[in-house]
């Protein structure tokens, strides 16, 4: 047995390994029981069938996958794919808006003194401590026909008399961005704090204009933060459907609605599991692409 020195102590490789297993054991067990096993179950369930009264028939086939790409009782129709596309569009637009609003916010906060920064952070974080449905209902009241935002919009002729600012995609994006913004700002702020302003100075010394300075001196340094906030906003907004239901009037379905419908009213757990699995795979694949493309040297 080979004895080695580790952290100033004499120990053997086997003993260290044992210690490592002991330390990671609980975490691994947690991941296996609450992440790995349910995911495997979901993916197996995705290939089962719905019984006549909402039970699960364990005869495996690709029926659910066929149904997902559009082979329905009404002939081929791309509705499910359309729903996926629409969800992706809303999630991407929300993410872009969150980063666009989040960047200046992060710089602004970082420019304040220590106590002021804590206060500003509290302002951003406190709303997300309240329930999502309550926050969304608050927007419904605020965007209603008798409130001042509707009055202002009416003054400028954007909406007609007696109309309100919701339901509609404008209201949906307000709700989405306001609920996702805190998650975008936090990682952005951390990377603003860690910025090496020496690089910015050097870039100015080399006569780079403001745009080039921002691109080479700031943006490239902030890439890890930006990628983290993209992940933190994109993935949750993909599955979000409460906001679009309440503020969008529920005219159109999102992937979240479709999954919820399978586990709820339709009682078709296998098809719901198939949709859920596809959503998981989509998120994981987009994360991998993101790491490869955007963050080669950062993440």
């Amino acid at each position, binding site marked *: 047995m080979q004895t080695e020195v580790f952290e100033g102590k004499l120990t053997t490789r086997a003993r260290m390994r*044992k210690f490592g*297993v*002991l330390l990671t*054991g*609980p975490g691994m*067990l947690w991941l296996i029981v609450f992440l790995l096993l349910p995911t495997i179950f979901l993916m197996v369930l995705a290939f089962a069938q*719905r019984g*006549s*009264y*909402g*039970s699960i028939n364990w005869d495996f086939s690709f029926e659910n996958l066929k*149904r997902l790409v559009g082979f*329905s*009782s*009404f002939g081929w*129709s791309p*509705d*499910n794919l*359309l*729903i996926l596309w*629409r969800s992706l569009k809303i999630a991407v637009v929300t993410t872009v808006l969150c980063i666009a609003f989040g960047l200046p916010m992060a710089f602004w906060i970082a420019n304040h003194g220590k106590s002021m920064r804590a206060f500003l952070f509290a302002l951003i974080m406190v709303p997300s401590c309240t329930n999502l449905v309550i926050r969304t209902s608050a927007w419904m009241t605020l965007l*209603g*026909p008798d409130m001042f935002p509707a009055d202002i919009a009416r003054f400028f002729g954007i909406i007609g008399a*007696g109309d*309100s600012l919701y*339901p509609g995609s404008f209201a949906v994006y307000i709700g989405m961005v306001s609920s996702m913004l805190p998650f975008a700002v936090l990682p952005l702020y951390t990377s603003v704090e860690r910025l090496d302003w020496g690089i910015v100075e050097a870039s100015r010394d080399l006569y780079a204009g403001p745009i080039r300075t921002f691109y080479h001196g700031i943006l490239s340094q902030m890439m890890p933060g930006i990628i983290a906030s993209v992940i933190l906003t994109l993935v949750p907004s993909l599955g979000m459907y409460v906001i679009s*239901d309440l503020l*969008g*009037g*529920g*005219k*159109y*379905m999102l992937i979240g*609605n*479709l999954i919820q*419908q*399978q*586990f*709820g*009213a*339709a*009682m*078709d757990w296998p098809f719901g599991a198939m949709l859920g699995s596809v959503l998981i795979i989509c998120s994981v694949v987009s994360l991998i692409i993101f790491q490869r493309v955007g963050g080669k040297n950062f993440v």
Partner: protein
Amino acid sequence: MKKILLALAMFTAACFFAGCNEEQKSSAHPDKVTVMIYSEYIDPEMLTDFQMKTGYKLQLELYEAQEEMIGKLQASGTSQYDVIIASDVVIQQMIHLGLIQPIDTSKVPNRVNIADQFKNASYDPTNSYSIPYLWGTTGILYRDADVDPMKVSYSMLFDAKQTKGKFSLLEESRSMLSMALQAKGYDANSTDQKQINEAVEYILQAKKDPHFLGFDGSVGGKDKVLSKMDWAAIVFNGEAMAAIEEDSTLQFAIPTEGSFMWVDAMLLSSKAPNKEGAYAFMNYILDAKIGAQLAKFINYATPNKASLEVIDEEFKSNRVINPSKEEIDRMVFLKDPGDAARIFDEAWTIVKTR
């Protein structure tokens, strides 16, 4: 490592045995009746009154949504509940999933009070699984003094020439599709693909109307009509009643093409620990006076014809809660579609995508 595993194993075992103990405890108390029920769906006074009259303690287990209730029964077993109160549409499903058992009707003498329209109904053709608790209808709530509620047709919403203001449709796949089927002149319970397809096209046509505001639940639709965002919406009569009490200019109509009614029924859990108590509860609710008290408290219609005789005239003559004979005749109960559930689900996906 071994020690941790052992500790974990012991912990799981302890939980398991604790669970067993608890189950034994609940079945060792036959003096208690456990009823699974929607929240706020019984007069709290009845808890003490029931105990006084029958000697059984009444324990309520509340739920908010149908799927939640079925999930609970499938997961934690039916041995924890005696009576389950659920809507007509899920009764057939619960029978097939083995969640409920036939009722020994001889133990519920008050069932002679049940009104005829709830006998041999499609949700329970043999009258052996269910006893009605309260019932209601679905119709159109609107703000328009010029429209006679007796002459309201679905075209008021579906025909763009007749819509006079913003409107919402019902965010409930089966119910909304069934209403569209009726609007087209078909049976609400039709599972014919062509007919369902026509119903889908009909809803999509209404969706294109610039007056269309969106799909909403019954409560959401009521709120939008009350706040004048909507001119009309499809709601359950309970919500319509609440809205009209707040604003008497609103009206509620059962469309001439027909609509569906729903009933919440008392069912016997398949492993009910206290069957006698369950029968006592069913019999108690079917009592004429208790049925009247329940209907007045919840503001829903009673399926108890003896209760209608003791209830006050004002409640009885309220057309929103107690529809006329003609209106009842054009309403049906919705049946569980069985294998056709997928057609309805796919139809709804189309409705909500295009």
